[in-house]
């Protein structure tokens, strides 16, 4: 009996330790087919109750976008140059990001390591390491992908650090979750001489391939510094409410492979 007990405990413990790696097996996670189907059914029932809020958000966003289109059309018509006579294909910097919209079908905010499951997978063009955002701001990074589903490692997971910067001063540092409250996270590596104040906004720095520059992350809620410290202890209020997350956009960075390749060559 003691032998069987030890065998089962060692099996479980091995799984836990293996799972500490960034990528885990698709078979035993919620990207698994059966598990995700059950979550889809469950979600379709409870989605009904969130429809009102979702509709309001959509119509607001819709109007904002329409206004933007009209404004941009006006501006474009005045500055558009003649089409260049060239067959060479390249993606201009302002068009190198494409969005794939997806729906959240499973989400947790109460663990120290939380995960989000989405209803799109590699058949929809999602790949590992792509960034995930929603209308309010940054959500996380794609961790595993199966044919029709994918799992996101959100900001609410200690293993993810998102590099972000102050809009005002451009100083940047990694943002990490503190493990307790789903509304707040900590900003690290901001040195003593940096000047900022409560309520300052943080955006993504664009130094990682997952996110373009300037996506909202949060605002400064509170900060502390002891006389002996050289770095601030900053508490950030996150822009995204993870408890009510239902639709997200996955960022497809079209020049990802070229940039990765170039950086690899440069390191050799």
């Amino acid at each position, binding site marked *: *009996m003691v032998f*069987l*007990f030890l065998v*089962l*405990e060692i*099996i*479980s*413990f*091995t*799984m*836990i330790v*293996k*799972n*500490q790696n960034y990528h*885990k097996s698709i078979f*035993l*996670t*919620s990207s*698994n087919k059966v*598990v995700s189907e*059950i979550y889809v059914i*469950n979600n379709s029932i409870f989605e009904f109750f969130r429809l009102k809020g979702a509709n309001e958000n959509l119509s607001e966003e819709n109007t904002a976008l329409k206004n933007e289109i009209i404004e941009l059309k006006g501006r474009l018509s005045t500055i558009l140059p003649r089409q260049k006579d060239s067959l060479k294909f390249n993606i201009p910097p302002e068009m190198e990001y494409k969005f794939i919209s997806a729906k959240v079908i499973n989400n*947790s*905010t*109460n*663990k*120290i*390591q939380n*995960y989000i*499951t989405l209803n799109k997978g590699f058949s929809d063009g999602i790949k590992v390491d792509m960034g995930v955002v929603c209308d309010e701001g940054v959500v996380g990074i794609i961790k595993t992908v199966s044919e029709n589903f994918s*799992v996101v490692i959100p900001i609410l997971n200690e293993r993810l650090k998102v590099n972000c910067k102050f809009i005002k001063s451009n100083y940047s540092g990694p943002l990490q979750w503190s*493990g*307790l*409250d*789903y509304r707040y996270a900590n900003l690290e590596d901001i040195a003593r001489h940096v000047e900022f104040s409560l309520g300052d906004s943080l955006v993504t720095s664009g130094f990682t391939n997952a996110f373009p520059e300037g996506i909202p992350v949060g605002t400064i809620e509170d900060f502390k510094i002891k006389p002996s410290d050289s770095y601030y202890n900053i508490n950030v209020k996150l822009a995204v409410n993870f408890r009510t997350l239902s639709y997200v956009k996955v960022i497809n960075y079209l020049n990802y492979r070229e940039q990765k390749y170039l950086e690899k060559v440069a390191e050799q």
Partner: protein
Amino acid sequence: MLVFIQNIFLFIILILVQVLALNNIQFLGYINPYIYILFIFTIPVRTPQWLTLVLSFLIGIIIDIFSNTMGMHAFACVLIGFLRPYVIKLFISIDEGNNPTPTFYTFGVGVYVKYVVALVLIHHFTLFFIEAFSFQHIFIVFSKAFFSSIVSILIILGIRSIKTK
């Protein structure tokens, strides 16, 4: 045979309730009750120990698959499956030839409450400490485990007191 079928039903229902309802609930922001372990409490006393361990592992790993926490629930469940006979022996002596299912009626109210409290505390503290995987957040983990245990114990005893016999 009837007990066998009842337990299969309990197994499925507890997993669905845990995964679809309770995993989405947070009292006060961080209290997350785990009531699926009621299945392990309900296995008849004289069930062979190897079967108890395998069943504990099975329910643990299924919860793990649903909540993306590989091995953590399985680990905690196998531990309480293993300790269960010793906890029972500690509080009550069962006659030879009897094979009762642990409830208020067969154990008596006091003993059953003690039995549930002991195993829930062991399970929750193991689970929450494995989840954190470090002693860095010892205070957060401790308070999470403690308050979640209280809520789980109340829910489990509540379910047991509704169900007659």
